[in-house]
């Protein structure tokens, strides 16, 4: 008897996505779908996808879904989870959405400890609207609204969301992953599994930031985009777990010896 060793996850619909060649949204969707399947929660999972490249995610996941306005997915997820605590609720947000217009919603959702999971896809640019500068755009990176490259004297430095949210006492799990190599994708899946599992166990807020490529708006071919992510983004956005349920508040460290 032939044995099926690889197939489309049940939580992923059998449709063609609108994502560009070389974009890793498709990989991230698949990892989430695999985790949902493996945890056996597809039938009680509800996703939230706000404005951005992922706004059509409701067409790709075989779960119930809410489309949300720009930046507000954590508030919508709060409403769903408070109304129906038995549901497994996740939002899927880009960096323009979460780190710019939706900054208030993500911080307060995390700080209230809402029992939801946020997948934060950081590709250092606004994708859907055509390549404008995001709060996560790298210094010197060219975007349509910073044609000479991001000038940190004018626009500040990129925001590191995983680091920022891990300063909060409440969240259960904050991590950063990437999916640009198979090994890292496996790690990303484990982080997503941890994030969803904690929610299912009734622990509070979990977030996995996932670095992603955007060859179309970076203006470079897919293979080169992977190298650019590795060379430019990885040193500034280190991968790893920033907060676990066990880690408490961060104690301030004393000034180094010799500093007056």
């Amino acid at each position, binding site marked *: 008897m032939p044995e099926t060793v690889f197939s489309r996850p049940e939580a992923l619909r059998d449709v063609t996505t609108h994502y560009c060649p070389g974009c890793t949204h498709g990989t991230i969707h698949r990892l989430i779908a695999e985790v949902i399947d493996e945890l056996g929660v597809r039938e009680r999972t509800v996703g939230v996808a706000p404005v951005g490249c992922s706004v059509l995610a409701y067409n790709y996941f075989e779960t119930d*879904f809410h489309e949300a306005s720009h930046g*507000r997915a954590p508030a919508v997820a709060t*409403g769903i989870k408070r109304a129906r605590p038995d549901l497994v609720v996740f939002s899927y947000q880009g960096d323009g959405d979460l780190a710019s217009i939706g900054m208030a919603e993500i911080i307060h959702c995390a700080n*209230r400890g809402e029992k939801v999971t946020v997948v934060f896809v950081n590709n250092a640019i606004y994708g859907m609207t055509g390549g404008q500068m995001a709060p996560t755009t790298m210094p010197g990176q060219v975007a349509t609204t910073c044609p000479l490259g991001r000038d940190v004297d004018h626009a500040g430095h990129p925001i590191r969301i995983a680091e920022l949210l891990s300063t909060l006492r409440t969240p259960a799990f904050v991590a950063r992953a990437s999916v640009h190599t198979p090994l890292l994708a496996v790690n990303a899946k484990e982080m997503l599994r941890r994030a969803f599992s904690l929610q299912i166990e009734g622990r509070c807020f979990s977030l996995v930031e996932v670095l992603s490529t955007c060859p179309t708006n970076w203006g470079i071919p897919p293979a080169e985009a992977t190298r650019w992510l590795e060379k430019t983004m990885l040193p500034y956005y280190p991968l790893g777990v920033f907060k676990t349920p066990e880690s408490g508040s961060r104690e301030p460290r004393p000034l180094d010896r010799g500093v007056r």
Partner: protein
Amino acid sequence: MAKKLMKGSEAIGEAAVQAGCHLFFGYPITPQNEIPEYMSMRLPQVGGTFVQAESEVAASNMLYGAAGSGERVMTSSSSPGVSLMAEAISYLAGAELPVVIVNIMRAGPGLGGILPSQGDYFQATKGMAHGDFRLLVLAPWSVQEAADLVQDAFDLADYYRNPVLVLGDGLIGQMMEPVEFREGRLPIKPLEAKTWAATGNDGSKPRSVINSLFLDPEALERHNVHLKEKYDRMVRDEVRFQSYGLDRDYDVLIVAYGTVARVCSTAIDELAASGVHVGMVRPVTLFPFPYQAVREAAARASSVLVVELSTGQMIEDVRLALANSKPIHFLNRMGGMLVSPDAVVDKIRAMADGRSTEVVHA
């Protein structure tokens, strides 16, 4: 249930609980803080949930998530806060989610003041936010009516799958009056199970997607047509108004809503005692507006007086109703100042002896 002396804000909160609303998301703003405060105390008693959101923007999007999950949910705010909710209200209307929103109006524009106003009439009835949508708008004139309308609002929201706005002012929220909650109250509309709600795709129903995005223009137009048909049904079936003093002959017809109409009723009673009879039509629904009732009542009068706590926003609807068939006079206060019964009496007398001038229309 016996009558109980309650503050308007608390009666509004209790009415929501009685209507089966166990979820409230809100953000502090004067003069309606007693509503979220009451809900934060009351909802845990019935197994419900109160969340103080980080902003009105977030609160209104929490409403979206909770309503999309099929639960009855309410928020309340006051004018500047409702402006912040406007974006989400457009999404709620687009995604056809039933929610109840209470606006206890304060004076504006901008930060304005914290005292009563009716300056949000246009916002409520004409142009809350971007896109092409309508809200059912209910305007109470007493604490009892506020409680009744809040309960009706939940039924209407569920029936039409549309946001319903209860539009009060600082007076309604702050004054205390006896109020009674009817036991065994039945829904005012036939309500069906919310099979459209996104509660998990377990195969028992088609997959649910709560959404207002239609990239295909033909599909969006079909959606717009569907919404228009719904708004037309509201116009046909949901007009509510109260007639006051129309059983006698009258020379002047007053059109006023909310607490201002209450003030006018006092003036009408005082004038009647001196032999001057004045009629009034009080719109209870501001959308749909009772055009026909105003037109028919005005046909028996020689002139019409609109009384509002604004620059004269409802005048436009009265004018539409009258189609320039009667002269319209206007009495108002703004900025949180109130119209007194004496001012209404003086205005009626001024209209009788020619000292009042007609409203000049643009």
